């Protein structure tokens, strides 16, 4: 049974489509980034500042502060959070073999929030040594641990003998999310006025709190977890056929699962720590991409990162502009966009829920 030469069949190779999408989405991200730097309440012009720089003239203080200290970190944070949420969604869907998996819906975000809330409320009670070593990293670390714990629990509960029951997964996610939210509620109940202020500010789900200080910790963690996630493409492709079949194809199943859970936890945990809960990016982006370029995770994960970043930046611009000079919490916008998509998948593929 040697490979006999086949006559060249005219067929579409969606890997090429996915590769072209890398370029298109990369260009889109550059455009949206420039727009995001240019748009804002203060009326400072990006173009004017660039012209000045090109002619070697110094920038005014306002221009420097608005562009470099306010808009630029917000841009980087938007890219980090958007790509982290979209890639986490795609990895979770691959891991659970289901297009409805998402860190927000399955309680992973709630787990991360619980971690973050615990630090805000109880952080002062930690030994001074721990506080000084971790410093500003305390909140992201706690959010990561919260996300990781909820991922492990969720996978344990919803996967039996290498098969994931979709109904169990969704219900377990809802139950775990509610449980974590209840614990967070107890902590919030215990919080004093100062802490409450901090909590409210944090939990709005916004990119408004962006600063270079936060990003020095968050950006590298998210970058590493995204690179890790993108390296799992082949393994997740295999897992789409089930754990046994993946094993028979030579994929180290346990390692792939462990790394996927770690990558999702680190990316989601960090994103939640710096931006609060922003939902539905993780479900909308991978779904649209699968329709356009196919479900092969090797191309999908990279494209999800690019599109997720663009989408969140675009949503952030809308949030800043529609009720200017006030700001709409961005979570409201992503939910408005995302929940109909979720329902659409659910209705169109009813068979999935019975699987």
């Amino acid at each position, binding site marked *: *049974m*040697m*490979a*006999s*030469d*086949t006559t060249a*069949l005219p*067929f*579409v190779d*969606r890997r090429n489509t996915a590769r072209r999408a890398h370029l298109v989405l990369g260009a889109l991200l550059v455009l949206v980034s420039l727009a995001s730097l240019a748009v804002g309440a203060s009326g400072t012009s990006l173009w004017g500042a660039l012209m000045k720089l090109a002619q070697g003239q110094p920038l005014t203080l306002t221009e420097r502060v608005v562009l470099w200290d306010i808009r630029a970190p917000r841009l980087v944070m938007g890219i980090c959070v958007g790509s982290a949420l979209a890639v986490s969604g795609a990895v979770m*869907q691959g891991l659970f*073999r*289901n*297009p409805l998996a998402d860190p927000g819906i399955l309680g992973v975000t709630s787990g991360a929030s619980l971690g973050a809330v615990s630090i805000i409320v109880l952080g002062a009670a930690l030994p001074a040594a721990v506080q000084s070593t971790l410093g500003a990293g305390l909140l992201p670390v706690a959010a990561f641990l919260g996300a990781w714990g909820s991922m492990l629990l969720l996978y344990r509960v919803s996967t039996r003998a290498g098969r994931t029951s979709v109904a169990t997964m969704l219900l377990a996610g809802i139950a775990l999310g509610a449980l974590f939210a209840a614990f967070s509620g107890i902590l919030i109940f215990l919080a004093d006025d100062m802490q409450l202020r901090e909590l409210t500010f944090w939990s709005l789900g916004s990119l408004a709190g962006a600063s270079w200080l936060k990003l020095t910790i968050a950006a590298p963690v998210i970058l590493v977890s995204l690179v890790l996630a993108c390296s799992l493409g*082949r393994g997740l*492709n*295999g897992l*789409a*056929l*089930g754990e*046994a*079949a993946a*094993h*028979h*194809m*030579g*994929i*180290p*199943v346990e390692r792939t699962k462990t790394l996927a859970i770690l990558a999702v936890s680190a990316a989601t945990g960090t994103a939640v720590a710096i931006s609060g809960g922003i939902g539905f990016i993780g479900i909308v982006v991978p779904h649209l991409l*699968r*329709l356009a370029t*196919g*479900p*092969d995770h090797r191309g999908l994960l990279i494209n999800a990162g690019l599109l997720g970043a663009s989408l969140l930046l675009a949503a952030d611009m809308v949030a800043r502009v529609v009720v200017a000079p006030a700001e709409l919490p961005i979570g409201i916008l992503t939910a408005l966009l995302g929940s109909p998509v979720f329902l659409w998948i659910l209705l169109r593929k009813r068979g*999935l829920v019975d*699987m």
Partner: protein
Amino acid sequence: MLKAKNISVSYGRKQVLHGLDLTARAGTLTAIVGPNGSGKTTLMRALTGDVAFDGTVMLGDTDIARAKPYDLAAQRAVLPQATPLAFPFHAVEVVRLGLRGGINTNDRLALTALSRVGLDGYANRFYQELSGGEQQRVQLARVLCQVWRPVVGGIPRWLFLDEPVSSLDIGHQLTVMNIARDFARAGGGVVAVMHDLNLSAMFAHQVVLMQSGHIIGHGAPAQVLTDAQVSRAYGCDIRTSSAPDDGGWFMLPQSAGGEDRERVTRSA
């Protein structure tokens, strides 16, 4: 050579396989047959390492309980009974997954494999929109890609097929059984769990007959699938015979349909 020694498997407290021994030679097709619940699928799962078992399974020099997944994947491919997919893969994309598992990564092979299983022109069809039988053949193409050459470097490779023809029409049953037999003839090893006794008798070099977690017959079809053995295993009256021209062995269920026939005779 596939050598399984003293294989026992329990699900909870219930022991379903009782210390089985089994040998299969490369270059032959071995069919595992038996009634529902006799443990043939469990035996297959033990041979492929999908269930925990007591005993040893050696594939050539490889102890399958200890081998690395990629070492095993280079030596043998496993076709499951049915594989539902939640994502909108094209048929060719599913087949291509098999290329990565094996040692042959020539991309064109995916198309060749699709046409080998009779799915020419199905490359860009959505897997989820195919019929059960077509999905099964896409999976077979994937598995074939993984071990495309039956012998590599003098070492035979293996196909493990769990009910490969159960959802196929008779024409495609023959296509698939021919693929399996060709693989064996070219020096590879094939082990298949089979429901159809006649196809087993037609294509298998060796038949393993199971009943209640025991192997009650192991050898050439004509020796194992006798009137007495088959009737005992399946708990009904089955007559076996051979076709007059080339001596092919077959079984007729008609002999077990006695009650109806009596009624017909009486009323006539």
